[in-house]
């Protein structure tokens, strides 16, 4: 309101200022309410993005096209990843490429002009095949769809007017218009390696192929003679005993597991022989198993077998429509474990699955196709063809978004929702088999070689991982933060408090990526090298501090008061002493309890379980003993009228040491008893050690959430009125008693809110978990195993997810759930905190 405006006259000024006022009011209100808009928009946008997922849920695949087709017995079917072109390999050796939208043949040719095809087998990704012929030769083939982009000039006139998105037959494949200027052609190509002669003039009856290394590994069985297993130039012959053949007839199935490490020969009766072929050098004799038996209906016959892309597991189908999934145990010479899948009631004729996927399609003789979710073992849906002819062969499109089936006289094609194979949203949240049973994954240190398809099909392991990491962090971080807050508010000088707060603020400001870096570069290698010392430090550090506390009153008077003046520094030194002591103690414990090498001992194959029980029981027994001693044995020195400080101090020290011995013996006694009862906790909460594991993440993440918990807890403690505290101290309670019995109950809601907000931080933390956990979607409670959290999964997969795909939507769903979870936690915490503030708030 300077002079000029003043002179212009009151009314003018008032008008203008009122106008400004109105603008300001509108703008400021908009910004204020904008906060609601942000949160609301967040919820709405995320929900809108996942809406298609919900609306798809429970939908059956729809028949996109069906077309009469008369071909002689197809043996293999393959679809390209855009679901436009398919190719069928017929038992006559003819290959027919066709359009999936109307079944028109695009190109048909005879692949083996001079020989008669007797059998064929394909790798689990369907990209490689082996063909057996009646002249005793076999030939490896490579199947692929080749794609090329063309400009309109290179295409004939008729195609140039093709509408965008439509396709037409051109040359020997299909051409599709991408946009105004670009066309894309797709051709099915099969290239063949040189034929290999196995048994001159005796027809090959069965073949199998797998690829795990540079060279494909394949097995061949002629009508007489042994199974020949070959990889590169190495060849092994596995004889089938003559009487076995006489008894069972000729084998009907030959199968290699997808990594080539097992070979099966199966007979109609369901008997099978299994060789462990992990190394071709020394082969053990085969194991016998029956794949259809197991109950009274033994007249069933084995009709189909399929190896799954997961290591060493396969499915079998029989003439009663039973589908069974088998898994070889990881151990040498282990037996087969059976996981029954739903029974279909009609003979199984054909099966197919996707590499890495968990969807299994089973075709039956009654013309139905069953879709099963392998991870959960549920029947997803059953599709029927109208004419009830037997399903000859099946194929799933590479992205899991289409299904194609051939019967004797017709071709069927279904569109499917991709990514959520069970068709039901709820299948994302149930535990899956893959993780429960595959405990011994190879130790992977980098995140990069994990396929996104793993978690694509289930959020359960991710939720599990998130909660496991957050729990570990809370278990380590919360006591640290709350005890620090008690010390700051109850013991520390007022002048020192602000510097402590600044230090904690400093901790809060360290970027989480730096925590992750510290975890990777310093903590993880150190723990891997000195695990026993690391574990021992968890005990030696508090013990060192407590011993120091008990020794202080025994010092000469001048020293004792010096120590109490420099207490914080002394405590720091004691921490260092505890840390240094951890190394010899750790070495001692390692050689005594952990079989000389903790990491090897954790595998559970050597050493005794006593150490494991001790690890689990010691904290509990320490807490129990200290409570018992504190309540029943410990008598505060001040109760006596004429205190004898030295005697009291000695008594206290004796009590402490006695308590420690009792705690140790209690834990050791129970551990010993449990061990002699042959209970071994290794495998449950403790187990094989991975370099990047939940325990270390708990420590680093725990430190990272200390500031969050500390600041709220400290605020809650400080807001307790001082006169309450003074009254308690005045009646002779020690500061600790005051803290526990007076301050903590009053500040309880603040503490609860601090813990909740800390939990929210731990759940939502991304970079630390992403960098320090190994990112394997495992569901085991073993604290020495890695995990993959929701946040890390989003960060890893979101950048490469294709928008509008179901994969993207599932990731957004994960985000939405994370958002709702943290919003719920924060709202509760905030309500608690505001209530507390209203009651005891500083004015």
């Amino acid at each position: 309101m300077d002079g000029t405006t003043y002179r212009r006259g009151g009314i003018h000024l008032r008008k203008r200022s009122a106008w400004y006022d109105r603008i300001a009011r509108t703008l400021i209100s908009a910004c204020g309410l904008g906060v609601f808009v942000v949160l609301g928009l967040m919820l709405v946008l995320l929900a809108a993005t996942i809406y298609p997922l919900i609306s798809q849920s429970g939908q059956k695949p729809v028949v996109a096209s069906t077309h009469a087709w008369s071909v002689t017995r197809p043996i293999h079917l393959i679809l390209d990843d855009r679901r436009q072109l398919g190719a069928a390999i017929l038992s006559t050796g003819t290959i027919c490429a066709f359009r999936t939208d109307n079944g028109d043949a695009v190109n048909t040719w005879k692949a083996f002009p001079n020989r008669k095809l007797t059998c064929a087998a394909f790798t689990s990704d369907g990209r490689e095949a082996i063909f057996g012929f009646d002249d005793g030769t076999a030939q490896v083939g490579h199947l692929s769809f080749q794609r090329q982009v063309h400009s309109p000039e290179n295409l004939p006139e008729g195609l140039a007017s093709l509408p965008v998105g439509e396709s037409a037959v051109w040359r020997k494949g299909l051409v599709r218009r991408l946009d105004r200027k670009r066309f894309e052609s797709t051709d099915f190509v099969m290239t063949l390696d040189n034929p290999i002669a196995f048994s001159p003039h005796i027809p090959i009856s069965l073949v199998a192929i797998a690829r795990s290394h540079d060279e494909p590994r394949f097995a061949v069985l002629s009508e007489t003679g042994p199974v020949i297993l070959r990889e590169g130039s190495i060849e092994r012959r596995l004889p089938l005993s003559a009487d076995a053949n006489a008894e069972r007839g000729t084998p009907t199935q030959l199968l290699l597991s997808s990594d080539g490490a097992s070979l099966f020969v199966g007979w109609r009766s369901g008997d099978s022989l299994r060789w462990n072929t992990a190394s071709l050098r020394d082969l053990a004799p085969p194991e016998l198993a029956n794949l259809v038996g197991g109950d009274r209906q033994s007249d069933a016959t084995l009709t189909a077998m399929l190896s799954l892309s997961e290591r060493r597991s396969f499915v079998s189908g029989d003439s009663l429509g039973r589908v069974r999934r088998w898994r070889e145990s990881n151990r040498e010479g282990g037996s087969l474990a059976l996981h029954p899948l739903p029974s279909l009631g009609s003979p199984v004729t054909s099966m197919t699955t996707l590499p890495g996927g968990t969807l299994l399609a089973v075709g039956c003789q009654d013309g139905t196709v069953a879709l099963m979710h392998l991870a959960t073992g549920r029947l997803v849906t059953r599709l029927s063809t109208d004419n009830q002819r037997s399903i000859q062969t099946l194929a799933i499109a590479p992205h899991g978004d289409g299904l194609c089936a051939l019967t004797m006289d017709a071709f069927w094609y279904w569109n499917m929702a991709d990514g959520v194979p069970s068709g039901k949203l709820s299948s994302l949240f149930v535990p899956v088999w893959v993780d429960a049973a595959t405990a011994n994954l190879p130790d992977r240190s980098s995140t990069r070689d994990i396929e996104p398809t793993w978690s694509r099909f289930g959020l359960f392991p991710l939720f599990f991982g998130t909660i496991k990491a957050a729990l570990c962090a809370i278990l380590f971080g919360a006591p640290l933060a709350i005890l620090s807050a008690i010390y700051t508010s109850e013991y520390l000088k007022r002048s020192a408090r602000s510097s402590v707060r600044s230090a904690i603020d400093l901790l809060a400001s360290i970027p989480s990526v730096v925590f992750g870096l510290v975890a990777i570069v310093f903590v993880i290698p150190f723990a891997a090298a000195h695990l026993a010392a690391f574990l021992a430090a968890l005990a030696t550090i508090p013990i060192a501090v407590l011993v120091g506390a008990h020794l202080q009153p025994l010092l000469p008077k001048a020293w004792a008061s010096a120590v109490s003046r420099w207490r914080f520094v002394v405590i720091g030194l004691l921490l260092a002493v505890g840390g240094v002591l951890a190394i010899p103690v750790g070495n001692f414990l390692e050689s005594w309890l952990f079989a000389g090498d903790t990491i090897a001992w954790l595998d559970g194959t050597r050493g005794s379980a006593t150490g494991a029980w001790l690890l689990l029981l010691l904290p509990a027994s320490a807490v129990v003993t200290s409570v018992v001693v504190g309540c029943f044995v410990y008598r505060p020195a001040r109760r006596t009228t004429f205190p004898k400080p030295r005697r009291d101090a000695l008594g206290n020290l004796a009590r402490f040491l006695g308590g420690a011995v009792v705690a140790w013996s209690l834990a050791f006694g129970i551990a010993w008893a449990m061990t002699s009862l042959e209970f071994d906790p290794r495998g449950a909460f403790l187990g094989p050690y991975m370099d990047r594991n939940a325990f270390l993440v708990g420590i680093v993440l725990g430190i990272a959430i200390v500031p969050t918990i500390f600041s709220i807890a400290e605020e809650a403690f400080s807001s307790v009125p001082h006169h309450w505290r003074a009254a308690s101290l005045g009646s002779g309670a020690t500061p600790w008693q005051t803290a526990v019995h007076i301050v903590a109950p009053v500040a309880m809601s603040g503490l609860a809110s601090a813990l909740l907000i800390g939990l929210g931080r731990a759940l939502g933390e991304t970079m630390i978990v992403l960098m320090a956990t190994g990112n394997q979607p495992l569901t085991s409670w073993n604290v020495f195993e890695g995990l993959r959290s929701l946040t890390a999964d989003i960060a890893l997969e979101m950048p490469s997810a294709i928008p509008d795909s179901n994969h993207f939507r599932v990731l957004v769903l994960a985000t939405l759930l994370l958002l709702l979870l943290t919003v719920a936690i924060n709202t509760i915490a905030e309500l608690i905190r505001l209530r507390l503030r209203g009651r005891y708030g500083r004015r």
Partner: protein
Amino acid sequence: MTSHQETPTSAGDEERACVSRDAARVGILGMPAAEPMHWLTGGALAMVVLSVGGLLGLLLVHGLFAFWPKPIVRLSMTDGRAYLGEVLSWNASPTASARRDLIVASRSASDPETIGDMILRVSNRSPSPSSSDSGIVRLPRRAIASQTIDPWAVAIDLGGNVRLFGTPTAFYEQSTLIADEPARIWPLFETRHREVRQQRRDAQREKDNVLADVDRLLASKRRELAAARARSQASPQAVDDAEEALAYARSESDKELDRLRERLAQVEASTQRYRMIVKGTDGTTWNLALVDIVRGSAPNQAGFLSAVVTSCERWKEFLTTGAGDSVQQSGIYPAIVGTLAVTMIMTVLVVPVGVMAAFFLREYTRNPTLRFCLRITIRNLAGIPSIVFGVFGLLLFCDTIGPALDALWFADSLPWPTFGKGGLLWAGCTLALLTLPVVIVSTEDAVAVVPSSVRQASYACGASQWQTIQRVILPYALPGIATGTLLAIARAAAAVAPLMLVGAVTMTHGSEGNETFSQLQLDQEFMHLGLHVYNLAFETDDHWTTRPLLYATALVLLVIVISLNMVAIALRSRWRQRLAVREL
């Protein structure tokens, strides 16, 4: 009972006085009673403080010494092989599988002195870190027969991650031998090397200048010609003139370029004058022209001072250069620029909005329910994981608003998106959402302590609400707003996860023109310090050579974030104190 030194200073401290008296009484009667829990809680706090200190100290030491010259050793192994190279680690713990094998093989092998490996960087001629010729060897300490430090071992960088180790044996000028012992070669090398490199740099600069001049001249003539053609109806004569001028300029510039070429050839010949012979292990010798050597160092000769100088030079280079051929040799200049740019965009967006939202909460609403809900919402926004903001930013900005803008303004370049993908602007917006609660809460705190008497005085003078805010409350709350802004900047500089989704990339290339601020564009992808740390930490192919870069990058990030925070914290305690004094 540390409180017994405390004297009550104000009326509010009376309760504390009781505590001190109580504690003093105990102290007089005897020694203070042992209070284990007192020590244990203190232990917890000390643990936290130590972990802060340890973490910062560890990174500080590793970061500051990231470019410290490492000694070159000559190792001969028990099996007769010999190595000459830089020591990356004297005693690295062996890989997990090797360790297991060791222990399985012999139980007595767990002697810590012999179990470790020595990591050496030896000469390599291939720039690729993943090839077998990466130059990193891991040697079990048990197999080392002898270990000597060769005083005249030198490291020669040839650029492109190629480094040679050897001893200089001869120095030639134009094929005449000048020196043949290391002690005389090396000083010669250092002066001549600097000289020829400078010559080559000058020549390069001259070439760039001349080419730019010629380009500019020709372009202007061409433009004139085009303009003349456009006006050809009016004055046909002008076209001919312009054509002539262009032809003349062309011939002139051709001459100029010829002259340049000649000069460059001369310079090249003169820079090729000096050559040095370096002898490696196994009798290999390298005949190197001085001018091709990017950097030469003799770390075993270096004293403390020269090590400091070398290390500072490397730091300067690291901070001011852009992307090299690979992650291993790149500086972090683009990452610093990217971080600063995205933070600036964020600040410009978040501060006005956050401050206004806080004023709404404090000054404009009288409705307690609305206020309550608003507070809860703000706390919630503060507690939402940053990755959720990243996904939200991706969905809202890159997938919804961006394509709309593209359709409106950049329809020409479709289907290639301009704003319909991650970029600086969208990253800034996402971070603004992320840091909004920080600014609101800080501002609200600052506004809350403005005495109501001041406000009422302003109203009593007839000021409107906006005038009161603008002239009275805003100046009062300014330090608080500044604190909030700094905290928000620090939080934004530390946020990595959301940026992974909205446009931060691993490497940008200099040719795309993001080396300097003036060339930054709102729609382009950018590098970020935090993301760079993440990428370097996961660089497993070549982690022994990327580690120093990792420590240095982390240190830079930490220094930026922590200094911002410290300033903010200091500022906050300053204004709180001042307000407290004023209130009295």
